[in-house]
């Protein structure tokens, strides 16, 4: 609304913001795309659909789906437990949620690897029942679960806290049992938050690097993730290759981001209450 502005500082603050955003965020992102555009379409296509690249997409996406699915359930349960129940140690549990976020990914990576290696605290007992985690896709999934957990818990938790208990009261007066109330009332009301958390967690899984590369084994065509392939291309000074792979990753993130915000605004139109 074009209103006479009383507050000072718009030109300065907006100017600083625009310059900074352009230089620090937009320019580098544009540089990736520019670099990729210096390739011919055929070259680009060959790089991003090479068997090795395709295999990284497959493993990254499948592991990210598995990790996100796990966290959708576990993160939801986590938020539920923190909001709905009182029990000793709740504060501690609540603080633990943020550990994966506060702990550097590389530290998480080496630690999870050490824990799940054949001689590690968890790896040894698991190996004795024939389950290998480190250097297998399972390891990738565990690293992804670790790093993306906070996003789902922390998006669902505030919405669950705000959920009016009268919705449940109304449902039970109308004859609904717990399962019906959960399925027909609580879950749909939490869905926008849950979806936002899920999509953000998924995007983070797709792009994660530090937590995964230690535990992944990194075998081309089997346990190599896409961000590692981009990294390797850089190490090999294959900059066009790196640009093409990075472009694919960038477009994947942007697509998911846009789809999520469309879904949310579609959902939000019904839910906005006066």
């Amino acid at each position, binding site marked *: 609304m074009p209103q006479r502005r009383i507050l000072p500082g718009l030109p300065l603050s907006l100017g600083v913001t625009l310059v900074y955003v352009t230089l620090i965020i937009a320019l580098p992102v544009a540089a990736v795309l520019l670099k990729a555009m210096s390739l011919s379409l055929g070259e680009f296509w060959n790089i991003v659909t090479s068997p090795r690249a395709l295999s990284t997409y497959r493993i990254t996406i499948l592991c990210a789906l598995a990790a996100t699915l796990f966290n959708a359930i576990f993160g939801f349960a986590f938020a539920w437990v923190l909001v709905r129940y009182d029990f000793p140690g709740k504060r501690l549990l609540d603080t633990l949620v943020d550990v994966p976020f506060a702990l550097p990914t590389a530290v998480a990576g080496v630690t999870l690897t050490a824990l799940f290696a054949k001689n590690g605290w968890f790896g040894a007992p698991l190996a004795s029942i024939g389950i290998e985690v480190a250097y297998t896709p399972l390891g990738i999934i565990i690293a992804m679960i670790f790093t993306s957990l906070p996003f789902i818990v922390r998006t669902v938790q505030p919405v669950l806290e705000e959920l*009016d208990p*009268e*919705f449940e*009261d*109304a*449902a*039970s*007066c*109308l*004859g*609904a*049992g717990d399962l*019906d109330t959960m399925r*027909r*009332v609580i879950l*749909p*009301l939490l*869905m926008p938050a849950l979806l936002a958390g899920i999509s953000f967690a998924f995007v983070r899984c797709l792009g994660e690097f530090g937590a995964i590369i230690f535990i992944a084994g990194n075998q081309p065509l089997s346990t190599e993730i896409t961000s590692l392939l981009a990294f390797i291309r850089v190490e090999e000074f294959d900059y066009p290759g790196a640009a093409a792979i990075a472009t694919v990753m960038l477009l994947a993130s942007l697509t998911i981001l846009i789809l999520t915000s469309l879904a949310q605004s579609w959902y939000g139109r*019904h*839910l*906005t*209450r*006066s």
Partner: protein
Amino acid sequence: MTLHIDSVSKRFGQYQALDSVSINIPKGELVALLGPSGSGKTTLLRIIAGLETPDQGRVLFDGEDATDVAPRYRQIGFVFQHYALFPHLSVFENVAFGLRVMAREARPSEEQIRERVSEILKLVRLTNLGERFPAQLSGGQRQRVALARALVIRPRVLLLDEPFGALDVTVRTELRRWLRELQQELGLTTIFVTHDQEEASAICDRIAILNEGKLLQTGSPVDLFTMPATSFVAGFLGSANILARESLGAGAPVGISGAKVAFRPADGKLSTSAAAPAPGGHLRLSGTIQHREFLGSIVRYAIARTGGEVQIDAPFKAGEAFIAPGTEVAVDIPHDALISLNS
């Protein structure tokens, strides 16, 4: 269905929200639960619906103890203070909810659900709004959706928690009349919570007055208005002047027995000729006009006197002059308009 509430008490921490409340409601009666904010009205409704468990006492439906029955099996229609409509469901689905969650054996077919919901929507005059979402409705429409949703399960008792609280005056008046007609048509035992005494008097068979968790008095609106038992009831149901009996001095009539005496502001007659003797059968109070409020059809005077201020409503006639503040006046109250109160 008849509803018995038998000495129900409920405590939240240190706070006694309900203190041994008992009330019987015969089938088809509309009872207004009237009381100030925080008096325990919502708590009582929630206990009837099974949403809260009483610390003591029982709730009986048709003589059967239902105190330990879970809300979902009570078949009670509850309209919440803020409606609690499911925001993610259309009006139609909100109303259909109670049918869709029925046990499989009892659940109507999709076609029957459609029929019953349409029928109810027609009853609450929302036929064309089935596809809308709650966010797209006006306050009055939401109110009627909430009512439709509660009615579709064919409730044995209808509980309405300040159903018109959030609406403006014209909509309120219209809806409350409509609600009364609907309730009588369906013959539904109903409790209606409000803190608006006018609303309560207008449509209810009986009024129950609740204050600080205690049920003070129940009775027809007329009985409560003419024969309040306590000064709280007298003051809450319409305005009243409440005086200590001894402050009346020698003029106190013989029939008055309680510690306090009350009369309605409209029952006092003002005269400026204080010298003339009081007419027979009247109590005379004298004082000076302190303050005057013009309220349309009446003029309310505040009269200062030793023994406590009183308020008198004089009918307003166009062309008649107001009595100026400072004027010495006499107030004459017929003896039969005096109400004796015990507390």
